């Protein structure tokens, strides 16, 4: 490649950026406890609301990590400079993701705000909304949640019933949301509610920015099947929201939500192996430890996990490679999430099989005794959150392969 070409496509700048990220992480990670081994031993670092003190400590670590990223110029890499971001492209974001993958940055509480809410505010918000909200999101000061799902509207989000009625220069909100991750520690939320019940279901929705401390909002944690409480029910009882908190246009909330969901699928399905999915290497060690690594059926099963793990990482590599070359990722971008969920289920099941009876009962004094149980109990959730495996297959079938939609029983 000639120098002139490098200048045009910014290869030099990108490598300089990579160096900067690498140097900074290498210096900060040991000091801040972001190395992988450290956080693994502190497995309690996973946010669990029933351990209130432990969870507060985790949130504190998370906020300080996000703030450090902000101070170092690595928060909001693709967000405009005028709203506190770095004004760079997806290519720098990919570089940052690649470099930070070796570390365990405690950033889970910001996934929804920075991955979905922020991009939506930036895409359709008013200048005042962007000025008010973007920077506190980037510094970690204000955490956001997303309130779309309802008891009667899961995969069929547009079927939601939460009502928003105009009351002078405010909106009055009544109804219930569910599966709201992080609502209990969020300062703001993005809410989808029905403003025009007489319009076809996709056309009568509006997106709102909600201050989670507004009177009339009640948050009740839901206990997940694995015992943790990451998500909540959120009840709205005559909650008043100022008119300027409409995000996008009134009755145009469906289009706004598509911006969010698109970002959600990018954020969740970018080909990363879930941190809770056991690696093939850990399965090898377990088999060796238990003295069963000569068993040919188990060897075959471990190798299959290894294959899927490499496939996922190669898919991710292809996605990142396309972005780095300024191209849109092809079909590989759509299949990564399903590969990841299948891998998670397979690896969790095999891990438990290799661990044997110890995966199902352990001494209460063994701090790591519940490891395989925790892994097994987490796996089913990955195939539901962020678009079920079935909805993902619909999306692949319809948007990637161009197959016809299922005729709808309700008006669209």
């Amino acid at each position, binding site marked *: 490649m000639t120098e002139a070409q490098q200048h045009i496509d910014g290869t030099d700048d990108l490598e300089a950026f990579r160096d900067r990220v690498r140097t900074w992480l290498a210096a900060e990670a040991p000091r801040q406890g972001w190395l992988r081994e450290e956080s693994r031993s502190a497995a309690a670092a996973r946010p669990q609301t029933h351990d209130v003190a432990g969870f507060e400590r985790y949130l504190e670590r998370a906020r300080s990590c996000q703030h450090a990223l902000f101070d170092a110029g690595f928060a909001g890499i693709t967000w405009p400079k005028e709203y506190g971001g770095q004004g760079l492209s997806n290519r720098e974001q990919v570089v940052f993701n690649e470099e930070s993958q070796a570390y365990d940055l405690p950033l889970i509480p910001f996934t929804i705000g920075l991955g979905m809410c922020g991009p939506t505010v930036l895409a359709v918000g008013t200048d005042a909304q962007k000025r008010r909200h973007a920077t506190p999101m980037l510094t970690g000061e204000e955490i956001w949640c997303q309130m779309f799902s309802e008891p009667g509207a899961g995969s069929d989000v547009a079927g939601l019933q939460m009502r928003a009625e105009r009351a002078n220069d405010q909106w009055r909100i009544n109804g219930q949301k569910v599966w709201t991750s992080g609502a209990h520690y969020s300062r703001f939320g993005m809410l989808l509610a029905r403003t025009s019940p007489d319009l076809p279901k996709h056309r009568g929705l509006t997106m709102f920015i909600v201050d989670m401390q507004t009177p009339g909002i009640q948050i009740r944690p839901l206990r997940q099947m694995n015992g943790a409480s990451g998500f909540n029910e959120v009840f709205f009882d005559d909650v008043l929201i100022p008119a300027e908190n409409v995000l996008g246009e009134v009755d145009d909330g469906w289009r706004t939500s598509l911006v969010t969901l698109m970002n959600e699928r990018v954020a969740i399905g970018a080909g990363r192996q879930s941190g809770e999915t056991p690696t*093939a*290497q850990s399965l*090898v060690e377990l*088999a*060796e430890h238990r003295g069963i*690594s*000569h068993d*040919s059926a188990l*060897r*075959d099963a*471990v*190798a*299959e996990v*290894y*294959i899927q793990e*490499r*496939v996922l990482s*190669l*898919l991710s*590599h*292809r996605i990142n*490679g*396309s972005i780095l*070359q300024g*191209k849109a990722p092809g*079909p*590989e971008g*759509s*299949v990564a999430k*399903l*590969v990841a969920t299948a891998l998670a289920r397979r690896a969790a099941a095999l891990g438990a099989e290799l661990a044997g009876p110890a995966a199902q009962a352990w001494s209460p004094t063994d701090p790591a005794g519940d490891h395989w149980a925790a892994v097994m109990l987490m796996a089913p959730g990955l195939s539901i959150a962020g678009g079920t495996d*079935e909805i*993902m*297959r*619909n999306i*692949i*079938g*319809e948007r*990637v*392969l*161009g*197959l*016809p*939609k*299922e*005729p709808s029983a309700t008006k669209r």
Partner: protein
Amino acid sequence: VNLIPTEDHEAFRRSVRAFVEAKAPPTEVRRLIDDPTGYDDATWRQMSDQLALPGLAVTTELGGDGSGWTEVALVMEELGRALLPSPYLSTAVIATAVLLESSADAESAELLSLIASGKTTIAVAVGQPTADDSGVTLVAQHSPTGWTIDGDINFVIGGAQADVLLVPATSPDGPLFFRIEATADGVHRTPLTTLDLTRRQARIELRAAPAQPVGDSESASRALARGFDLTATAIAAEQLGGAAKCLEAAVAYAGMRQQFGRAIGSFQAVKHMCADMLIDVESVRSTVAYAAWVADNEPASLPVAASLAKACASDAFNRVSASNIQIHGGIGFTWEHDAHLYYRRARSTALLFGDSHWHRERLAHSLGMG
């Protein structure tokens, strides 16, 4: 690791695809199934004269194109899409991979030049691997009049059609590769009846067949190992092409075929099957791109990368070619429909050069499972 095809690769792919689609429409593939040779010699010559495909991986000093295995994998993918029968796998992949390990040797150099010229086809009489041996079953003996080889070997791809046989055999000096003229005395070639109708195989029986050594025992050991891995990689690329073609056919049919008043592809049971086929195809595409890149850039990682690609591609092509039949329903089970040709190719290639269990066992070993 770079897995994104360059503009040059895409342009090359377009020209190969245009050629293959022009030369091997389904009617031509059907004709060649019943042809005594099993491939069209004029097409093979054009593959050489117009596109220089046989010598793609042969160095330029020997008259080849000096490209890499990434380009070879790309050709295999395109040939696999169309099921175009040709000596490409036996000559341009297996024989070339073996001979490149001893290219300093005059005999090897001559054979590589002949491959690049497109004038000679070569079959490598290598056995299929079993759990604990390399597949070398033939025995070479030295006498004052030269080397001779005895033994029988099955499943030799292109063995009955090739001009020259390249044969690995055990000798007092260790394993060696030998050149045997296909028409020499003591060479008996019996075409096998094959599950895959679009690729010929033979049983070869050698009775004191006169043989000329090619390279030395060191190059032979390297050739057996690397030749096997490059072949497995190339077959995985071919499986990718076949699987991608099956996916296209299934999606086209699911979008067109009407039942219960709507396209069957609008039913989730069918749509999700198509989505799973895409997941398989993109997974295989990832491992094949990686293995081909490794073959050119990181030789020490080739055994793992080849096993990754071959295991993934064999299982995926088996599933995808079966789903293609299922989506086509009754018509997909007929002789006239091409779906079974891909299913046959899938089931056949899955068992050649290490089935997926064999490759997973090798991966388990490489992961440190004792």
